[in-house]
């Protein structure tokens, strides 16, 4: 029963935290008493922005210039941390929006659940003028943030699937990575690489020790225009596409090419530092992380789009995105929207963020900046920005995460653990996972 209390406590805690934030804002407003009405105006208001690590730092850096343009708006950017931010937003929404920040940074994997399960929790941005930005973003982005004629967020990042690799190691093994067409060829190359250099191909958190260890599996699905759910919300984990994706993972593992990065993020970073794996099958933003992690390996790394799953298949996929939403309970919605607009729809802001943190914008106009077309010294003189821009321009499959994504993700990571740790059969574990999700959510399995 203490857990009931814990849960209520968290909710009450969120309330308390919220009122503290409000009081804090109130205390700071003595110098310039800005009239803050229930709706606020674009020119005035005090807003709190919730984000995490890198993006939070970049938004903080944009605040001084923003304040010059909007002197009536006071912005407080808070680094809530990821994944802590999801629990905090959930508690806030469950408490009827009490204590939420005004601007909320939300990943595409959480957005549908927030929209569906907490109707009215996030503000509709259309009345604030969101529609005028509709055509400015990469393909599919507007669909991911809007529903039933309402727009719940402005797109920020659009991450394409990437394939970062240690060019020096593959060279030593005599493998031409650019020539690899399919993942089956990658497995062959990986075996060669391991024989010659002793280095494993990729890393996966095999026991799913920190939750999200399915990024690679999802990429393989999305390269086949497939996902856990179809557009109608049916479960599509039992499809040939899903079985093919999991089979690739099993083949890699059976060949001894998968390093276990149990422990999540830190373990993965240390595997890069140690040079334990040769490939990072990670999205656009990860390039910045590699540069930060092993600055000494400048010129040793290269990047390309991932090989296709089946011969002649797709090599581009928009694998995830993040967005800025406005809380419906915000007392300064217009001011909050003005800040989101400033960060996301001005190419200058996005270029600055890309330069510092390598976060790829969904805003297409940003890509006119030369920074996206420069040769990257770290990535062996490649034009990294252009490689991902090409992927972003390809027809993109819109992923339906649905409100039950987190349940599905749990079932999928458990299935993957069974394959990686016990050598289970991909088709069997995926069928079990699909059935479990159906039992828990009442959705239909498409077979």
């Amino acid at each position, binding site marked *: *029963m*203490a*857990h*009931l*209390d*814990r*849960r*209520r*406590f*968290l909710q*009450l805690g969120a309330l308390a935290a919220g009122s503290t934030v409000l009081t804090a804002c109130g205390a700071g407003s003595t110098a310039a008493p800005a009239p803050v009405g229930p709706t606020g105006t674009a020119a005035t208001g005090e807003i709190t922005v919730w984000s995490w690590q890198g993006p939070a730092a970049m938004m903080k850096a944009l605040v001084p210039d923003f304040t010059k343009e909007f002197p009536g708006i006071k912005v407080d950017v808070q680094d809530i941390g990821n994944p802590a931010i999801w*629990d905090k937003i*959930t*508690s806030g*929404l*469950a408490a*009827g929006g009490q204590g939420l920040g005004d601007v909320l940074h939300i990943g595409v994997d959480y957005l549908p*659940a*927030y929209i*569906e*399960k*907490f*109707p*009215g*929790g996030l503000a509709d941005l259309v009345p604030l003028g969101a529609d005028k930005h509709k055509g400015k973003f990469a393909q599919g982005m507007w669909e991911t943030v809007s529903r039933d004629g309402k727009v719940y967020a402005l797109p920020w990042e659009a991450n394409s699937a990437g394939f970062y690799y240690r060019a020096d190691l593959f060279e030593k093994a005599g493998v031409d990575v650019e020539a690899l067409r399919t993942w089956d060829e990658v497995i062959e190359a990986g075996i060669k690489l391991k024989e010659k250099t002793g280095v494993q191909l990729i890393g996966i958190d*095999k*026991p*799913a*020790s*920190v*939750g999200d260890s399915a990024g690679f599996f999802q990429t393989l699905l999305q390269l086949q225009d497939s996902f856990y759910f179809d557009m109608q919300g049916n479960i599509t984990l039992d499809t040939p596409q899903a079985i093919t994706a999991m089979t690739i993972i099993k083949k890699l593992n059976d060949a001894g090419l998968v390093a*276990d990065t*149990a*422990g999540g993020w830190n373990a993965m970073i240390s595997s890069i530092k140690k040079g334990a794996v040769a490939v990072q099958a990670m999205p656009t933003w990860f390039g910045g992380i590699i540069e930060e992690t092993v600055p000494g390996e400048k010129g040793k790394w290269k990047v390309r789009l991932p090989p296709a799953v089946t011969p002649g298949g797709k090599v581009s996929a928009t694998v995830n995105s993040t967005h800025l939403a406005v809380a419906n309970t915000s007392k300064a919605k217009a001011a909050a929207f003005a800040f989101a607009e400033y960060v996301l729809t001005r190419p200058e802001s996005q270029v600055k963020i890309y330069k510092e943190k390598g976060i790829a914008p969904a805003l297409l106009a940003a890509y006119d900046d030369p920074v996206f077309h420069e040769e990257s010294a770290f990535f062996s003189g490649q034009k990294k920005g252009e490689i991902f821009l090409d992927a972003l321009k390809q027809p993109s499959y819109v992923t339906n995460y649905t*409100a*039950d994504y*987190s*349940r599905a993700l*749990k079932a999928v*990571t*458990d299935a993957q*653990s*069974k394959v990686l*740790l016990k050598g289970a059969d991909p088709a069997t574990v995926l069928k079990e996972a699909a059935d*479990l999700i159906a*039992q*828990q959510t009442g959705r239909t399995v498409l077979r």
Partner: protein
Amino acid sequence: MSTVVSERATAGASAKTPRRVRRPGTKAAPYLFVLPALALFAVFKLYPIAWSFWLSLFRTDGALQSFAGTANYERLLRDPLFWTALRNTGVILVVQVPLMLAIAIGLAVAFGSALLRFRAFIRLGFFLPMVTGLVAYGVLFAVLLNPQSGLVNWFLGLAGIPAVPWLADTLWARIALGLALTWHYTGYNAVIFLSRLQALPRDHYDAAAVDGANAWKRFRHVTLPGLRPVVLLTLVMSTIGTLQLFDEPYVLTNGGPDNSTLTLGLYLYNNGFKFFDFGYASAIAYALAVIIGFLGIVQFRFLGDKS
């Protein structure tokens, strides 16, 4: 505490005033004193408990609620993950709790022994894990048990034992969880046992010694029976704690691999805060409360004071 307050209040009142004359308000005073505590209890305990029961009768999709009657409870019976969580929790209860309490009794006897030097320091050492923060504790064990660079595997390596996949294997993850729990709570229980040991009358031991009982017989026939009330106390508390177990699997294993360390507490949390299914989470909470109540009654029956 409330009884102490009320006794004192009436004693004081009757000392100063004649018996038959009561000053108005004297009777109300104790109630006034306990009122703040009662109010807090009502707001922070009773209300959430009642509200959670109400919630458990609804199908909740985040903020959307529709009355579902007993559907959540029926769903529990058919949910394979609920049974997995219940089984995992049961295994910990049956294996880890008796082991921990046995070690705690041993430690308590050692703490009380005149032969032990630096007693205060050693007692502190065993009790200290109890006050370690959740995150520090989790990080500590994650570092110690890291399969590649962990200290535990390093020591095992020195002894020629191959590296153990502490958190990556279904069996070893359970063992790792048990080790962490034992480290955390044994000292706490030992201190409770020790306080009882120190309250045991010396003459029982003297009498036993006169009768020619050796150390083992004294332990078996004097110490253990004397400890019975606190054995019941620690057993009931450990049972409740184990059934509600959340922190350790959350930080160490995230319930994995493949749900081998998923506990009822963690499953409840996941349903509420990861899957936004508050109604179902509440049903789990009530199922948990019923199980705890049942086990509590059983334990009192078998170990309770028979006098």
